[in-house]
C-alpha cells in the first residue's frame, strides 16, 4: 500500500489546490476559535467533558449493560458485533429478513470503518448515502476525505461535473445553491421510497437507552422517520451516563467542528414510531483492545468533531486520502495503528508534533503525545522502514549523550554554512519542499551560557 508520504506527494502536486485546501480548513479552524472564545467558561466545559468521558471509560461495562437494558425495555433490538465483518452481517441479515431493496444511510464513520457499503454491494445491495458531501464522493467512487466535511478535497467544478454526469445538471453550472438544490430533489425521491434507514449515533445515553444523532441537513431524520426499519450503528465508546451530560457534549461538538453553536438538528431517538422496527448495533472492532492500552485508551473519549483535522498543518497540506484509512487526520493516526499496526505504521509519523491538535480537542485527548508514543511502539515492533529507522536510531543515540549532541550540533552548523549542498540535495528526503533556514552562528546553549549562564 502506498504510504502517507507518497500519497501526500500526489496531493501536493497541484499547488494552487493544496493552498486552497489548506486555507479552507484553516478558515474552519478560525470559525471554531471564534465560537470557543465567544463562550465564557469554554475551558471549564472542556474539562467537564474530559472528566465525564474519563469516568465513563472507567465504568464502561456497567454503562453498556445499563444502556442495553433500557434500550430493550424501549422496544429496540440490540446487537453486538465484535468486528466490522460481524457488524456488516448483522445488517445484511436484517435486510434479507425483510427483503429490503431501498436503503438510505446518513453519515456514520463507523460504517465507513467497517466498509459496509462495499460489503453490501458485493451482495448486490445498493446503499444511498444521503449527506450531501457523502453523496458526492459516493458518485465519484471515492472515500470521504474528512469525517465532518467528506468532500472537502473537491472544488465546485468537480461537484458540477459529477452532478452533470449522474444527475443531469447543466454542464458548467458551478453554483453551490443550484447543485445543492439538484441533490435535494434527487435525494427526496430516495427518502420517500426508502425501506431501511441506517444512521450513526453521536451519543448513546445509558440512563434512558436513547441515542442522539446530529446533522445540519436533516438527512438522518428524513430517512429514519420514513423507513419501516431503522438501524443505528455505534462504536461502544459513544456511551455517556445521563441525559444531562448531553448538554455538555452538544455545547462542545458543533462549536469545535464548524464554529456553529449547535447543529440544526439534534434528534433524540428513544423508541420506534408506531409500526416501525428499530435496531442498534454496538461495535467493538478493536476498541476493547485500545481500552487496554494505557497510553492510548484516551483516544476512546473522542466525539468525532474533527477540530484536530482542521488545525493540523500536515492534514491541511496532505489531504484526507493520504492517510489511506476511513478516519484520517491526527485522530486517525492514533486509532488506526491499534487496528492494524503494520498497515498503519506510517501514520504516527504524519505529524509535526506541534501539539495544536491537543490544544483544540474538546475532550482533552493528548493526541500529539500519543502520536509520539505510537512512534516508539511501531519502531519497537519493527514496523518502520529502514531509512526512518536508521535516522531514528542515530537520533536516539545522539540525544542520549549530551556531549555528543553538542558536538553534532556544532558540526551541523559548520557543515550547513560551509557546504550547504550536502544538506540541500536530492538524497535528503526532508529537504524536498523545504527551504533551509539561515544557520545560526551559535547554538541556543552557547548563547544562553554566554548571556544568561553566569
Amino acid at each position, binding site marked *: 500500500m502506498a504510504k502517507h508520504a507518497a500519497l501526500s506527494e500526489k496531493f501536493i502536486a497541484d499547488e494552487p489546490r493544496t493552498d486552497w485546501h489548506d486555507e479552507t480548513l484553516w478558515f*474552519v479552524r478560525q470559525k471554531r476559535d471564534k465560537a470557543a472564545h465567544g*463562550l*465564557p467558561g469554554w475551558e471549564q*466545559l472542556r474539562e*467537564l467533558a474530559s*472528566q465525564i468521558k474519563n*469516568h465513563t471509560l*472507567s465504568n*464502561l*461495562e456497567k454503562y453498556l449493560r445499563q444502556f442495553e437494558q433500557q434500550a430493550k425495555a*424501549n422496544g429496540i433490538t440490540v446487537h*453486538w458485533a*465484535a468486528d466490522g465483518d*460481524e457488524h456488516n452481517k448483522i445488517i445484511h441479515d436484517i435486510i434479507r429478513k425483510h427483503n429490503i431493496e431501498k436503503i438510505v444511510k446518513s453519515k456514520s464513520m463507523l460504517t465507513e470503518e467497517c466498509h459496509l457499503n462495499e460489503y453490501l454491494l458485493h451482495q448486490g445491495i445498493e446503499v444511498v448515502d*444521503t449527506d*450531501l458531501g457523502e453523496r458526492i464522493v459516493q458518485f465519484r467512487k471515492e472515500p470521504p476525505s474528512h469525517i465532518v466535511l467528506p*468532500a472537502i478535497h473537491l472544488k465546485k467544478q468537480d461537484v458540477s461535473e459529477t452532478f452533470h454526469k449522474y444527475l443531469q445538471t447543466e454542464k458548467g453550472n458551478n453554483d*453551490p*445553491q443550484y447543485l*445543492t*438544490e439538484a441533490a*435535494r430533489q434527487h435525494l427526496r425521491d430516495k427518502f*420517500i421510497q426508502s425501506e431501511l434507514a441506517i444512521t450513526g449515533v453521536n451519543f448513546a445515553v445509558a440512563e*434512558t437507552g436513547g441515542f442522539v444523532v446530529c446533522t*445540519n*441537513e*436533516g*438527512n438522518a*431524520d*428524513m430517512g*429514519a*422517520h*420514513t423507513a419501516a426499519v431503522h438501524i443505528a450503528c455505534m462504536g*461502544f465508546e459513544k456511551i455517556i*451516563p445521563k*441525559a*444531562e*451530560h*448531553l*448538554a*455538555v457534549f*452538544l*455545547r462542545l461538538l458543533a462549536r469545535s467542528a464548524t464554529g*456553529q*453553536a*449547535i447543529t*440544526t*438538528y*439534534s434528534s*433524540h*431517538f*428513544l*423508541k*420506534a*414510531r408506531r409500526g416501525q422496527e428499530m435496531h442498534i448495533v454496538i461495535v*467493538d472492532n478493536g476498541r*476493547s483492545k485500545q*481500552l487496554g492500552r*494505557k497510553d492510548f*485508551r484516551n483516544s476512546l473519549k473522542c466525539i468525532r468533531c474533527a477540530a484536530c483535522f482542521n488545525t493540523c498543518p500536515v492534514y491541511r497540506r496532505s489531504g484526507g486520502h493520504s492517510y489511506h484509512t476511513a478516519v484520517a487526520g491526527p485522530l486517525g493516526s492514533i486509532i488506526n495503528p491499534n487496528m492494524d499496526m503494520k498497515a498503519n505504521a506510517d501514520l504516527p509519523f504524519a505529524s509535526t508534533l506541534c501539539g495544536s491538535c491537543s490544544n483544540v480537542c474538546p475532550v482533552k485527548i493528548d493526541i500529539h503525545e500519543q502520536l509520539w508514543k505510537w512512534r516508539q511502539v511501531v519502531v519497537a515492533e519493527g514496523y518502520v522502514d529502514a531509512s526512518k529507522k536508521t535516522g531514528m536510531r542515530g537520533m536516539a543515540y545522539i540525544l542520549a549523550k549530551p556531549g555528543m549532541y553538542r558536538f553534532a550540533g556544532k558540526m551541523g552548523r559548520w557543515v550547513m554554512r560551509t557546504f550547504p549542498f550536502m544538506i540541500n540535495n536530492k538524497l535528503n528526503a526532508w529537504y524536498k519542499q523545504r527551504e533551509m533556514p539561515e544557520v545560526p552562528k551559535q547554538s541556543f546553549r552557547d548563547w544562553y551560557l554566554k548571556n544568561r549562564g553566569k
Partner: protein
Amino acid sequence: MNAREKILNAIAANQPEAVPLPVIDKDTVISYNDVGMQFNTMLESIGGKAVCIQDLQVLKESVNADKATGKFIVNTIEALGEVDEYVSSLSAAQLEKLEKAYIKGTVGVAENGAVWIYESQMLNRLVPFICQHLVLVIDKKDIVPTMHHAYAKIDTAQEGFGVFIAGPSKTADIEQSLVIGAHGARSATVYIIE
C-alpha cells in the same frame, strides 16, 4: 462465547480504575441579561427568523391566510384553530407536498437559538423535517440561557422522539459555501409570545 459476552468481558478486563463523575454546576455557566434578546440574535445569525408577538391573533390570521391559498398547510397547535390530527398517520409520500407546518415548542435556548419539540407536539415525526417552511411557537418564559437549563426542563425519556431544531436546514459541503435548504425546511420562523 457470543460477541456480547466477548466484548463486555474484554471491556471489564481492560477498563481503567474507577474515577468519579464530575458534577455540573448550572449556576457557574454563562448567564445573559436578556435571554429573549440573545435567543433572537442567535436565531437570526443562523438563518432563522424571530418574531415577537403580544398575543396569538396574528398567528391565527397567518394560519387562516396560509390555508386559504390551497397549499398543504398543517397546524398542530390547538390555540391557533383546528388541529390537523390526521397527519399523524400520513406516510412520507403523502407528506411530500407539505408546504408549511405550525408547531409548538417546549423550550427555547438562548445560547444557540434551538427549540425543543416533543413528538406529541409535531404529531408525526416527519412533519418538522419534510415541510418546506417551519413555523415554531414558544412562550417567552420558556427561553432558558443554555443547554444545561434546557435539559433540566425537558425529559428525554418521556416520549419516543424529540428534537432540538436550530434554524433552517443547511449545508456547506460544496466548497464550504453555505446553502440554506439542504434536505429539511428551507426556512424556520420562531414566534415568541411575550
